[in-house]
């Protein structure tokens, strides 16, 4: 049988999380993992995310005109770097490396694929292993930082838009897609960002 109901991971709140309910845990992290936030200037954005090296360092400049503080600026830069690395790798692997797709997900990730509920990377990988050949072209993406996890990383809200071509023919049909994802840093060093929430929709 399919893997629609993998065992719940430790971080999944027991019972149905009702909107508006107090969750009791910090943002995507179990309380015991939470350490004091390090000084912000020590945060290195995009450290090793998906093995991408990144030379840029956080700007120590004054607050930007968008109204964000320096702390925000660092997190914004971090979310850009991580999102960029993610987009480059993930959408490429959707057609070249389908057998490893599960590695992009937390085991309990909740996914909505064009209105179909999937849970965890294994479901998603199974779906893509039976999909026709796809070539993704991300034409637009934007990312914002969520809440820092206290270890110099934060979860990221990512939105992408582009088109996907089905098949290798020149005239192969293609579809526009839009996605939004929540990426969460894991415990590994260098850190990986894993999908905990994903909403996929063909929009054209």
């Amino acid at each position: 049988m399919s893997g629609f109901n993998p065992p719940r991971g430790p971080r999944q709140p027991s019972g149905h999380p009702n909107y508006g309910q107090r969750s009791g845990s910090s943002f995507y992290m179990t309380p015991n993992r939470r350490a004091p936030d390090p000084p912000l200037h020590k945060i290195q954005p995009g450290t090793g995310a998906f093995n991408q090296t990144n030379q840029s360092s956080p700007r120590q400049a004054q607050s930007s005109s968008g109204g964000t503080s320096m702390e925000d600026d660092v997190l914004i830069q971090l979310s850009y770097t991580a999102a960029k690395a993610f987009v480059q790798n993930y959408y490429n692997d959707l057609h070249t490396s389908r057998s490893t797709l599960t590695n992009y997900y937390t085991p309990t990730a909740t996914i909505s694929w064009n209105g179909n509920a999937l849970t965890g990377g294994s479901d998603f990988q199974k779906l893509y292993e039976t999909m026709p050949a796809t070539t993704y072209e991300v034409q637009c993406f934007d990312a914002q930082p969520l809440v820092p996890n206290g270890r110099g990383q934060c979860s990221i809200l990512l939105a992408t838009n582009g088109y996907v071509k089905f098949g290798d023919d020149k005239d192969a049909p293609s579809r526009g897609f839009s996605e939004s994802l929540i990426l969460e840093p894991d415990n590994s060093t260098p850190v990986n960002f894993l999908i905990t929430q994903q909403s996929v929709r063909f929009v054209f």
Partner: protein
Amino acid sequence: MTGRSSLPANLGRRTGVTGGVQKRRASAKFDREGDFDMGGQPPTGPKARPISGAKPTRATRSNTVPNQKLDSGPAKGIRPVRNTARPPPGVGKGPRQPTGGFIEMKVSGWKNLPKVNDIETIIFLEKKLKEKLRKPRAVGENILFQLPLIKVPTALEWDNVAFAGGNLRIQPVNELPVSIQAAIKPQMDRSEQAQQTAVLLKNVLISRYIPDAKMLDLSALATHPQLQGSGFFSQESTRAKMFPALMKVADEQFTNRAEKREQVVSVNLANNTLPDITMVVSLSTTFPELKNLSLENNNISTFKQLEAWRFKFRKLEQLILTGNPITQLPNYREEVRKWWKTLVMLDNVVYPEPPPASKDAKGAGPGPFPQTPLSIKPTGMVDDPEHTNNFLSTFFPSFDSDRKGCVQTFYNESSLFSISVNVSAPRLPGDSKHSIQKWDAYIPKSRNMVRLRNPTAIKDRCAKNPANILKLWDTLPRTLHDVTDPSKWAYDSRNVPMGDMIGMQMTVHGEYEEPENIAREGVASKRSFSRTFMVVPNGADGYLIRRDILIVRAYGGTHAWSPEAQAQPQAAGPAQQVPDNNPKQQLIAQLMAQTSLTQKYAEMCMEQTGWDISKALQAFNEVRNSGSLPPDALAQPLVS
């Protein structure tokens, strides 16, 4: 201008006799469109504007220039240095002869322009004349300055140049020396003549427009009395320029594409002895949405000669090629239909096969969906339908009608908002009606990280707190979202922990109109968007948006999630077998579609929740999220 009354509103506009404004415009246009030389003198002066001097090696020119140089005083390079040493006498001292190689010029028409002052006018002129103005100064209505004699003809070409919503007059203060008048005279004549031509062509258009038929009858143009008189057809070179010029003038009669579409449905080009369409090719740019076109009795013999129109006239319904050798080609009718798929009739004979359905029709899209292991479901995953609906149906109307109120209601000091534009998103083929491709208002704020790499811009374009978000919103076009029509929307809404609360991550796909574009473009223009919100409760029944990412793109319709698009064959899809005349069965089917439950479990779930679909969905989500859903409850195993 007789006959104007029989014209549609705009064909009588811009009569071209309101003074020098038209003269200058017309001259520039013809020049650009292909050296519309009316046989007058070519531009003279050593530094004539480049666009006027398309053919610099004419005898007339080489004759004029030396003369002018001889008459107009010192050779280039000597004058300026000498003269700057001695300041010219001030103005207002009555008539005064130009000193040395300089002419006193005056510029008027800037004083009553609301947005500019004298300095800006001077900067503008210096840019246009490619010359630093000497001693520029504002005196009353005029800006006075000095110009080397040799530059005067060039400067006068810019007389009546459009500037800041008005026109500038550039004139010499005193009468010019005879020598330089000689150099300028032909220039003036030439623009006069170009203007006369514009009026002539306009009269031709007026006389050949048939309002009842919305037809422009351009047949047998060589026999038109006014055109005959003009000498257009006396030689091949002017003949070739006549039609593009005619189209240019036609273009100017309309303010937008919708007007053209409404007022010119048919064009008749019969009996013009056209060997191909080279001469008339601009017709497709001027009237791209033409429905009926006649090329009857010309000399078109191959498809190659029609090539330039192959991908044009995408709305063409009727074409007449009778009397052209091309009609003798094998498979002629089939080929023509391949080129213009929308054709209903060729040479007055109807095609037996109707043309494919218009791409503008509702539900149009880029063809059928490829087969995917899972079906596309119109309804997304919604964990909390009540709050989701509440939020969506209050947020968007508020965003549309009162952005200031909206930002105060839904955002707080730590909220983030950013917008990005995908200018190259796929578009509906041939959808010129909805799909405007003007993004000027969005690009400066777009945070599309595919294109944007500058870290400063990436920070600056992420607006934090209500004041900054509102500031950004104020630069964006006004919007109109239709929350009354669910078919226009597709969204997922998942409950996610946010801080110490459970919030909602909402991913919303839909469309909006830009009301201002309706006025500007004459059509109801739309854009598609995807917007992601992170929302937490705010008070008893309010919502606080923590994060807001908006992606805007060309209008792409709703077919991607509309039920009629889901025609792909389903392997043993039980939903398809359910008879849809039973309301209970319909509810079961609906629940199955939204949850992937098997029919058995869907029925069970509906039973237990009193046949209330929203309760059933809630129950399903509860059970699923608690992990206690039986493994056989879900249909459509991904891998058998």
